[in-house]
C-alpha cells in the first residue's frame, strides 16, 4: 500500500467519525427527505422539489466543503499529527495530496447520499426520475470542490475559521464572476462590461447546470438560485459551457498545487 493510499484511508476513517461531519450528513439527509415529502404536497411539485433539493445541496454542501477544507491541515500541523507522518517518511507531496483527495471523496460521498435520497424520494413520491437534478448535483459538486480546495489551501497557513472565510469568499467570487459576465453579455454594466469579461477570463466560475439556469431565469430557483436582477431588470443566466467546466477544474488543480506547496514549504510540529 503506497503512502498516499494509506493516508487517504486513515484520514477518511478518522473524519467520518467526527461529530460535526455526521451531524451535517444526517441534517442534509433529513432535509432531503423533507424536500421530497414536501414536494408531493406543493402545487408546482416539480419546481418545489428541484428548488428545495438544490438548496439542500448548496447550503449543506457549503457547510461540508468549508468544514472539510478548514480542518484539512492546520489543526493537524499544530497537534503534531502531520509531523508524525512526515517524520515517519511519508513524502510531503503524498501528505498534501492525500488530505485533499480524502476530503474531496468525503464531500462527493455526502453529495451522493443526499442526491440519491432526493432522487429516490422523488421517484417514490411519483415525481419521476430526475435526470436533470443529477446533472445539477454533479455541477454543484464541482463548485463545492473548488470551495473545499481553496479552504484547504488556506488551512496550510491559517487557522480553520480564517481558512473557512477565505473559502467562502472564493465561492462568492466564483458566483459573482458568472453573474457579472452574464450582465456584461447583455451590456448592463456600462463601462464595466469589459472589466467583467476580464474577470471572467481570470477567476474561477461556479458551474451552472441547465436545470438551475432555467429555473433561475423564471424566478423559480428558490434560495439556491434567486433571480439575478440589476435595477429590478432580470439578467438571464446561461448554463455553464464545457470551457467553463474545464476552467474550473484547472482552478481546482491550481488550488491542489497550492496545498502541496503549502505543506512542502512549511515547518511541521
Amino acid at each position: 500500500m503506497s503512502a498516499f493510499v494509506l493516508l487517504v484511508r486513515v484520514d477518511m476513517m478518522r473524519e467520518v467519525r467526527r461529530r460535526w461531519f455526521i451531524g451535517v450528513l444526517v441534517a442534509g439527509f433529513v432535509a432531503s427527505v423533507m424536500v421530497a415529502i414536501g414536494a408531493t404536497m406543493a402545487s408546482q411539485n416539480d419546481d418545489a422539489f428541484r428548488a428545495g433539493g438544490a438548496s439542500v445541496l448548496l447550503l449543506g454542501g457549503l457547510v461540508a466543503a468549508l468544514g472539510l477544507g478548514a480542518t484539512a491541515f492546520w489543526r493537524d500541523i499544530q497537534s503534531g499529527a502531520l509531523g508524525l507522518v512526515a517524520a515517519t517518511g511519508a513524502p510531503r507531496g503524498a501528505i498534501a495530496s492525500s488530505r485533499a483527495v480524502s476530503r474531496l471523496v468525503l464531500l462527493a460521498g455526502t453529495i451522493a447520499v443526499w442526491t440519491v435520497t432526493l432522487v429516490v424520494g422523488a421517484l417514490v413520491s411519483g415525481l419521476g426520475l430526475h435526470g436533470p437534478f443529477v446533472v445539477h448535483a454533479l455541477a454543484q459538486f464541482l463548485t463545492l470542490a473548488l470551495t473545499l480546495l481553496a479552504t484547504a489551501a488556506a488551512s496550510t497557513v491559517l487557522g480553520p475559521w480564517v481558512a473557512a472565510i477565505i473559502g467562502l469568499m472564493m465561492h462568492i467570487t466564483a458566483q459573482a464572476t458568472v453573474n457579472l459576465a452574464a450582465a456584461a453579455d447583455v451590456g448592463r454594466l456600462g463601462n464595466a462590461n469589459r472589466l467583467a469579461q476580464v474577470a471572467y477570463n481570470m477567476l474561477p466560475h461556479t458551474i451552472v447546470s441547465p436545470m438551475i439556469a432555467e429555473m433561475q431565469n423564471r424566478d423559480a430557483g428558490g434560495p439556491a438560485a434567486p433571480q439575478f436582477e440589476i435595477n429590478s431588470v432580470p439578467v438571464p443566466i446561461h448554463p455553464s459551457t464545457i470551457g467553463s467546466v474545464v476552467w474550473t477544474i484547472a482552478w481546482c488543480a491550481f488550488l491542489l498545487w497550492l496545498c502541496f506547496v503549502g505543506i512542502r514549504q512549511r515547518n511541521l510540529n
Partner: protein
Amino acid sequence: MTTAAGPSDALVIAESLQVVYQRGATPAIDEIDLTVAPGEGLLVVGEPGSGKSTLLRALLGLIRFGGALTVLGGYPGTPAVAAHVGWGPQGKGFADGQSPRSVVEMVARLRRTGSDTLAATVARALEDAGIEATVADRVTNDVEIVRRTSLACAVVGDPRLVVLDDPWEFEETVAAISAVRARGGAVVAASNDPGGLPSLLGRTLTLVDGVAA
C-alpha cells in the same frame, strides 16, 4: 561534545546547527555541535522555549535548518532515513480521532520495517508501551494512553534511532530506552522535567535560549 565513536559510526552528527523560524529573528537554536553514537543516549534539557523540541524536529527533518546535520548517514527526514528513525511526539493531539492501534499501524506501514508481520509488529509495540489489548482499539482522550501511544510509535519496527519529546517516565519507557541502546541503537529525548531520565540516557545537553550551556 565528543564521543568515543568516530564520525563514520555516529548516528547523529550536527555541526553549527542553527534554526531560525523567521528571517531576522533570534535563532531558536544556534551553534549546536552534537554527535550521538550507536548505543548512546542523550537527554536534552532546558526551560520551556529553550529550543529542545526545535532540536528534535531538526533531527527529524520537520523544519529547515542551517549548519550541517547528518542522521544515519543521510539527510534528515528523507524516506530512506526516516524509515529507521522512531518518533514519539509530545502532547496528545497527534493521535486525535484515532485509536492507539490505528496510529501505530499507520507508522509501521509508513516505516515498512521489521521482519515480523505487520500485525505482530504493531502488537509487540503496543505491548512494549504498556497498552493493553482492551484499550488499543478505542479512540481515547486519556492522556496516559496517548503518551503510551507516543512511545509505541517511537519503538515500532525497532528503529535504529529513537527520538522522544517529553516522554512520560513509565516502567515501559525505561525498558524501551534500555532495549534500544542494548541492540546498538541510540535514543535522543527532550524533557523539562527529566526525573530519572538523565541516569538512564547517560549524557545530558542543557539548552539555554537555544544555545548549549
